[in-house]
């Protein structure tokens, strides 16, 4: 009888031990997961900004190649230069994102204009620049989408029970999704 009680006590102790251990492990892994996912979001945003920079680096070449041909499109070039300066001057990520989306509509307009000029289209260097530009726009949309996917994974951890309690203890809050400006969500497509 005494042996049985001792065995029971041992069993209960073991169960409690295992439960405490798994709770500790759960908190640890959830916390580490939050840290990792939060950093993954930042890393992905850096990817988006890399592509923004690539786009801005392309613009001077594009302007150079097309400027002489359409004098009447000076307004587009002005808007591009404006947004580019604003992007360079922005210090906050959301300011940069705003400036980048402003550039999008101007670029889309420029692509449409180029498509309407057969003389321009037939120039190989213009075609190449347009491909680079379209490729960059596509890259931006891909990296933004991956950014949003990562935010979604992170936000799931922050919002769902029971991991939301752990996120709350350590002050981890839901992050905002990237939202493209209206009309700028579709990357311009070059079709020659």
């Amino acid at each position: 009888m005494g042996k049985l009680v001792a065995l029971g006590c041992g069993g209960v102790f073991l169960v409690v031990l295992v439960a405490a251990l798994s709770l500790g492990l759960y908190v640890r892994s959830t916390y580490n997961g939050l840290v990792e996912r939060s950093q993954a979001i930042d890393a992905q945003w850096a990817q988006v900004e890399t592509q923004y920079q690539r786009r801005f680096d392309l613009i001077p070449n594009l302007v150079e190649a097309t400027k002489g041909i359409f004098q009447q499109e000076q307004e587009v070039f002005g808007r591009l230069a404006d947004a580019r300066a604003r992007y360079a001057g922005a210090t906050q990520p959301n300011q940069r994102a705003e400036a980048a989306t402003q550039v999008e509509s101007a670029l889309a307009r420029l692509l449409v204009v180029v498509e309407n000029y057969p003389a321009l289209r037939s120039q190989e260097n213009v075609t190449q620049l347009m491909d680079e530009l379209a490729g960059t726009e596509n890259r931006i949309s891909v990296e933004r989408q991956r950014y949003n996917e990562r935010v979604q994974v992170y936000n799931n951890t922050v919002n769902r029970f029971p991991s939301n309690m752990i996120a709350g203890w350590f002050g981890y809050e839901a992050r905002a999704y990237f939202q493209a400006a209206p009309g700028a969500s579709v990357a311009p497509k070059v079709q020659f």
Partner: protein
Amino acid sequence: MKARFGMKRLSPLMALLLTLAVTGVGLAQTPLPQPMGHVNDFAEVIPADVEAGLEDSLRQFEVDTSVELAVVTIPSLDGAPIEDYAVRLFQQWGIGKKDVDNGVLMVLAVQDRDVRIEVGYGMETYLTDGQVGRILDTQVLPELGQNNYALGILKGMKAVAETIKTSDYQPGAVRPRPPLGAVAPFLVAALFGIVYLASFLARSKSFWLGGVLGAVGGAVLGWVWGGLWPIIALPIGLGILGLLLDALLSSAYTHQKTSGRPTRWASTLGGFSGAGRGGWSGGKSFGGFGGGRSGGGGASRRF
């Protein structure tokens, strides 16, 4: 009989674990096909002999340069932009070597009359968007315009391969691994071998010895390895593995014994014969792509 009962209990669990491992995380989007090789003519527009020849060339190109080139034809995109489809397929298949991302994918959507060449992250410098656009304009579109799909694809892939070969692309160097990290899989494999041997030899006496041995061995290995996770994960993992293995072998032994069949190692396929149905489905000769990624580089055209 006891051990056999254990076996019956294990099967659904194992099935569940396998299902979870295979399904993973799935997004609610149109399902993507599985890769059949370098050339995947789902729209059936390439004659069989041309397809086999192209497959050989692309395989040889991978041997020579480690660059993975893939061709996919599909009947329809079902309304999705070809850019989205290409980047999703690229990601799912993992075209190119892992971490080097040296893959290139050509997608042809026959009914949509869309074509795209998607370039992996690692190849963007050697195959720029401008170059891809030029290849499409000069090599691919003239043929596709006359519905010469196979010829357009052949010329396109040939131009892609030549552009890479004439660029200063160097086949990616193999990254050195940390010293213990390289030996660790062998240690785990060796330990697994010991667990298996013990499970086999003791299958008539116990159906748990393998589990105990696995846990103990895992603890020792985890301690040698260092760090918190190996110490926790290895004993648990190897313990469960040993338990499963021993239960499987013991139940197989009981089954063989009760049905009067031989129980020696050689005549039971290593002790697994009699362990019920199942087994692995036969694989194809194509080993799959290397796990490379792309980020929307490349160019698209409508033909």
